[in-house]
């Protein structure tokens, strides 16, 4: 949710959305298939620089978001690196009397590779989401020939989330003001009441919404003026150079 807020203020907001999505996805694919730590490190640093300095996203925010999946990644990498076995094999092992936890140089290598690959993929995707608001992302999907039904639904849901959040927040505040959360049981009851109320409110709002749509001539197609943001030549050149750079670093076997 907050990512979207920053995307609206990004310095890369004026860039063509499809171009950004393509660059991020292409980088992601390259990182996965090349499978080189050096290439991953290069992507992590370069995407970070792009998001922080060109996109002007506050670095605190960026690192907080990067840390979110980090704990998850560390655990998965530990699982990859460490195996369970009956014999003391591998370069390192710990005896647990009944079984051994061991770790070979090879598995450690894989774990580190996977870890950097994952972080690199994350930073490429963050570059995309920290610079492209949801609405533009939906337009890209629409241009990629995703069925209109999906894209229009995505659009409405996206706009509606904020309205419902607002309604839920107001009800929660009102409940708090009347000691709605004074005990655990009361909190549960309040939560249930708010949930039910939210459903009724959403139905009511949907009605009002539909009336407003009709009043402005809606006839089954949700369409807006789309801003033309042409891809600039220097952007294409830079991305080409960038991809070439990743390839070179990967093939150098650093």
């Amino acid at each position: 949710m907050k990512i979207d807020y920053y995307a609206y203020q990004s310095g890369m907001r004026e860039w063509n959305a499809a171009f950004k999505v393509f660059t991020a996805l292409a980088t992601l694919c390259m990182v996965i298939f090349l499978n080189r730590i050096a290439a991953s490190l290069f992507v992590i640093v370069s995407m970070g620089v792009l998001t922080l300095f060109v996109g002007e996203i506050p670095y605190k925010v960026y690192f907080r978001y990067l840390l979110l999946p980090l704990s998850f990644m560390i655990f998965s990498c530990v699982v990859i690196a460490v195996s369970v076995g009956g014999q003391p094999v591998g370069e390192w092992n710990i005896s647990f009397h009944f079984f051994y936890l061991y770790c070979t140089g090879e598995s450690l290598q894989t774990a580190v590779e996977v870890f950097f690959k994952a972080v690199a993929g994350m930073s490429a995707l963050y570059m995309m989401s920290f610079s492209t608001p949801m609405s533009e992302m939906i337009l890209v999907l629409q241009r990629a020939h995703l069925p209109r039904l999906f894209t229009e639904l995505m659009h409405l849901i996206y706009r509606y989330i904020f309205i419902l959040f607002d309604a839920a927040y107001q009800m929660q505040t009102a409940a708090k003001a009347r000691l709605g959360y004074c005990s655990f049981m009361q909190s549960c009851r309040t939560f249930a009441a708010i949930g039910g109320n939210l459903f009724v409110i959403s139905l009511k709002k949907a009605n009002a919404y539909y009336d407003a749509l009709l009043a402005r001539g809606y006839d089954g197609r949700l369409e807006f003026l789309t801003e033309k943001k042409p891809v600039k030549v220097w952007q294409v050149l830079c991305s080409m150079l960038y991809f070439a750079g990743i390839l070179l670093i990967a093939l150098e076997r650093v």
Partner: protein
Amino acid sequence: MKSSGKIENIDAGRNGDILIEIKNLFFAYEEKLVLKDINFSIKRGERIAVMGSNGAGKSTFFLNLNGVLQPEKGEIWLEGKRVGKKDFKELRKKVGFVFQDADSQIIASNVRAEISFGPVNLGLDRDETVKRVEDAVEYMSLSNLQERAPHYLSGGEKKRVSIADILAMEPELFIFDEPVAALDPVNAEKVEEILQRLHGDGRTLLIATHDVDFAYRFADRILVFADGALIADGTPDEIFRISEIMERAHLKKPLLMAVWETLAGAGFVADAAAGCPRTLEQLKQKLL
């Protein structure tokens, strides 16, 4: 604030023609009669306040005027032509409706796209749409908010966006459902200035409001609804003098009128018969 070319371009010569006429209009929400036998007409360039207690049928009536709801019985005439069962889309083009809750009207995820929704639905080409959007943005002084997402705007800004939405469709008749409800005094004043400006540009305005002081100073004509019926139709001076209507419609006398009557009763005013002032400025002029 200068207004843009397109919006100024109103055929003021036609002011005074009948724009819309309602004859014997009835409307029911599943058996429950909400609007009963509504009859009246609106002339071009009029500014009309629509008053009445909550649930008197104002909003339903507006949705009927706009073609979103279809009347059970009765006729709507638009520019001298009867609106048939298949022409309700025509009504939606000619009658613009600014909803009370801007949040239930705004659907796009940035301000420019939002304003373009109406013009795009009108089937205008890209150049004309862009022009309409830009004119509306300028008219409502929204240029620094154009790229913003509606959910990060303040209440007053959202209201201005919701008015720009309708402005870009260039309807003949503007309907406002309680335009200043839930706004702070400064923002309310801004909206009132916008309404004033629209009137100055020759627009026809129909405004639902509970604010008697606003209705008294702003409107040329007041329609009063009670229990789904139109119980009064006249100038503010006429309407606010009939206590029976005021009681039925849960209205109160405008402050300025009450003050004026008190002053007149105490003999402080020389020409009490000349009519009550409608603004503070007029009151000062009359007293000094």
